[in-house]
């Protein structure tokens, strides 16, 4: 199969590990226009193939690794690729995004996507080139950590591998490419369940694009814009995501003591400032990225990837740990073992509170850190209490109690943002398709305190803003770009002049524009919005690369289609309104005793959200909506 569009390879392969067959999977140009690529393309494939509830660790589950049209065509921040599956952590659909160079190689190997089904009898890894797929024995690699595995695989190319956590089916095991992780949802355990240690892709030929000269111009302007923007040009390069710790503390957003507070008195010790001044070796970044937000620090004298803000938060304030070096050590160790730092940290804080309350005698205590490093190894190898911790906070709460303070949504642990300091983020955690994910939840905390300062406690317009940003990020991700490129949505003057008149007006009115947002979300595709200024560079770049018609309206509509398609998969697997929920601590206990608004008014927010989304009161997308989105005929 080929394609009339530029920037695509026009080929998706399906590998069945059980009988070792490789076939071409049909994906049409009509589908490319509707689903673009990446996580939305993967959702379409999963929706068409998994039609009933399955055991995520059974051969029936599938891994769908996809690229987008922006990969390998010179766009900035465009090494992001996607791996979707049914999550062993939640039982629902998950899509995990990664910035390693595997995706670029997969595309240069001539593939838009690779589907892996079945289960191999022997331990293997796959080697993908333009000539096809080879099955390679992985007995010698089994048991190795992720760094060692990537070094030991003799073939050159982009590598995507699991560590011991994936092999031992830790429910939140991740997959690593270079130093970057497809972190969330336990994708690594699905690899392990299939006896698949990893995949190597190698290719050198990028796909042709529709308008080379125009794309080069757009990419150049886009890169310049990223370098000029205060977030992507200054804040992230200078301080990384770790630079958020201070802001989070000051705005009651820093999850502390298993989400019993939004502030940590020793926040400076684990801040981006401390990391920069006392530990930073140099900046780093994904291939193709001009932002370079990654940090390089030292662990045991070796230069390694530093922690992101979520890891600093969950292994710092949330377990009352002020030793930043210990977080560097554990962050590196978790990457090497191949497990998600967010779910792991959050599960640990839950276990500490269980112990504190006398509900599980496990020896874990807030502020006690000497036993953590060995515990991480125990989790990855399922030894002792590590076997329970490897199951995640939801299953732990089913075994030991404490559901009201097990900080997960749909079984996926929340990130480090305490949602009682940003109730729109709380809504996002609750309704997100993959569970308690800050990004899939719409990341409204950026407007509620991190970037802008709209009222974090009001429900006004939050439902519409949540849906809109979910949809925007959905398409950005499907295209193959890093979500940080969506910061361009916020004009420079709004960010760089937080005390200026315009920013103050925007902060005031943003919570009162629900009707306007609803209009944006309801504009028919035929009348898709042509805005007088370019809010997102993505639209121009996608149009130049592919030859598709693209504007803001079409862009957001693709995201809406993707989000609803993922919801449909979840609904098929059992999700309804009852699952769009948060732990009781966040909805019933005040974060600040003197502030009666400092809890998440979830029922009110959910009701509005379903209405904005055109979902019925049980959280199911309506037929009218599905027809409008061309998801049914």
């Amino acid at each position, binding site marked *: 199969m080929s394609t009339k569009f530029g920037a695509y390879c026009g080929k998706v392969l399906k590998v069945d590990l059980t009988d070792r067959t490789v076939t071409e999977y049909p994906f049409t140009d009509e589908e490319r226009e509707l689903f673009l690529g990446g996580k939305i393309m993967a959702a379409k494939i999963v929706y068409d193939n998994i039609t009933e509830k399955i055991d995520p660790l059974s051969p029936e589950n599938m891994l769908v690794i996809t690229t987008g049209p922006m990969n390998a065509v010179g766009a900035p921040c465009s090494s992001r690729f996607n791996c979707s599956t049914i999550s062993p952590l939640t039982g629902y659909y998950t899509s995990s995004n990664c910035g390693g160079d595997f995706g670029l190689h997969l595309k240069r190997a001539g593939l838009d996507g690779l589907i892996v089904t079945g289960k191999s009898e022997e331990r293997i890894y796959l080697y993908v080139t333009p000539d096809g797929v080879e099955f390679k024995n992985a007995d010698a690699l089994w048991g190795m950590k992720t760094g060692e595995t990537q070094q030991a695989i003799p073939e050159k190319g982009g590598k995507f591998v699991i560590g011991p956590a994936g092999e031992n089916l830790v429910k939140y095991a991740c997959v690593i490419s270079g130093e970057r992780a497809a972190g969330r949802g336990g994708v690594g355990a699905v690899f392990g369940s299939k006896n698949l240690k990893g995949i190597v892709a190698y290719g050198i030929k990028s796909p042709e694009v529709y308008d080379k000269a125009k794309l080069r111009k757009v990419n150049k302007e886009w890169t310049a814009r990223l370098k000029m923007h205060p977030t992507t040009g200054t804040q992230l390069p200078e301080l990384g995501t770790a630079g958020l710790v201070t802001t989070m503390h000051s705005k009651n957003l820093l999850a502390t003591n298993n989400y019993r507070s939004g502030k940590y008195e020793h926040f400076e010790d684990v801040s981006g*400032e401390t990391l920069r001044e006392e530990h930073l070796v140099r900046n780093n970044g994904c291939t193709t990225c001009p932002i370079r937000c990654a940090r390089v620090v030292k662990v045991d004298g070796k230069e390694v990837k530093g922690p992101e803000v979520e890891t600093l938060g969950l292994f710092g304030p949330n377990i009352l740990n002020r030793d930043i070096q210990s977080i560097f050590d554990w962050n590196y160790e978790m990457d090497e073992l191949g497990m998600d730092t967010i779910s792991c940290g959050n599960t640990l804080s839950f276990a500490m509170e269980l112990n504190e309350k006398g509900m599980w005698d496990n020896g874990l205590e807030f502020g006690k850190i000497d036993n953590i490093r060995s515990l991480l190894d125990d989790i990855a190898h399922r030894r002792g209490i590590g076997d329970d911790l490897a199951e995640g906070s939801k299953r732990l709460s089913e075994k030991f109690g404490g559901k009201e303070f097990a900080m997960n949504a749909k079984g996926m642990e929340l990130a480090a943002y305490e949602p009682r300091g940003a109730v729109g983020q709380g809504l996002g955690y609750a309704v997100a398709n993959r569970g308690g994910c800050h990004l899939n939840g719409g990341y409204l905390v950026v407007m509620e305190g991190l970037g802008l300062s709209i009222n974090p406690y009001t429900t006004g317009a939050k439902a519409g803003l949540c849906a809109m940003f979910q949809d925007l990020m959905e398409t950005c991700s499907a295209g193959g770009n890093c979500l940080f490129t969506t910061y361009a949505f916020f004009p420079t003057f709004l960010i760089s002049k937080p*005390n200026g008149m315009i920013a103050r007006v925007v902060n005031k009115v943003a919570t009162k524009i629900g009707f306007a947002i609803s209009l944006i979300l309801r504009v028919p595709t035929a009348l898709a919005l042509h805005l007088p200024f370019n809010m997102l560079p993505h639209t121009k770049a996608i149009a130049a690369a592919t030859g598709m018609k693209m504007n803001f309206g079409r862009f957001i509509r693709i995201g809406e289609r993707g989000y609803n398609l993922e919801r449909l998969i979840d609904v098929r697997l059992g999700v309804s309104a009852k699952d769009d929920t948060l732990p009781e601590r966040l909805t019933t206990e005040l974060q600040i005793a003197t502030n009666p608004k400092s809890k998440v008014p979830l029922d009110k927010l959910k009701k509005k959200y379903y209405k904005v989304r055109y979902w019925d009161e049980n959280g199911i997308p309506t037929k009218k909506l599905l027809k409008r989105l061309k998801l049914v005929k």
Partner: protein
Amino acid sequence: MIVVKFFGIARIKFKEKELHLEASTIKELAEILAEHFSVKPKEFKQFVILVNEVNINKLKMFRTKLVDGDVVMFLSPASGG
């Protein structure tokens, strides 16, 4: 004395973590800091300014009064992660 703390880009730009100064309003503080760092007072408008962890946009902006012992924080305006 007012405790003035610098974070994020403010700390990088002024190469200072903390100062102790006398000032009766944020406006006056900005003027004193401008002289101290040899920059214009408007330089400080690009930062989020908190007085005892409350954003001045919830107080009286640059007319916000300061009293002995207040902690003023200058933060980077924005980010996400």
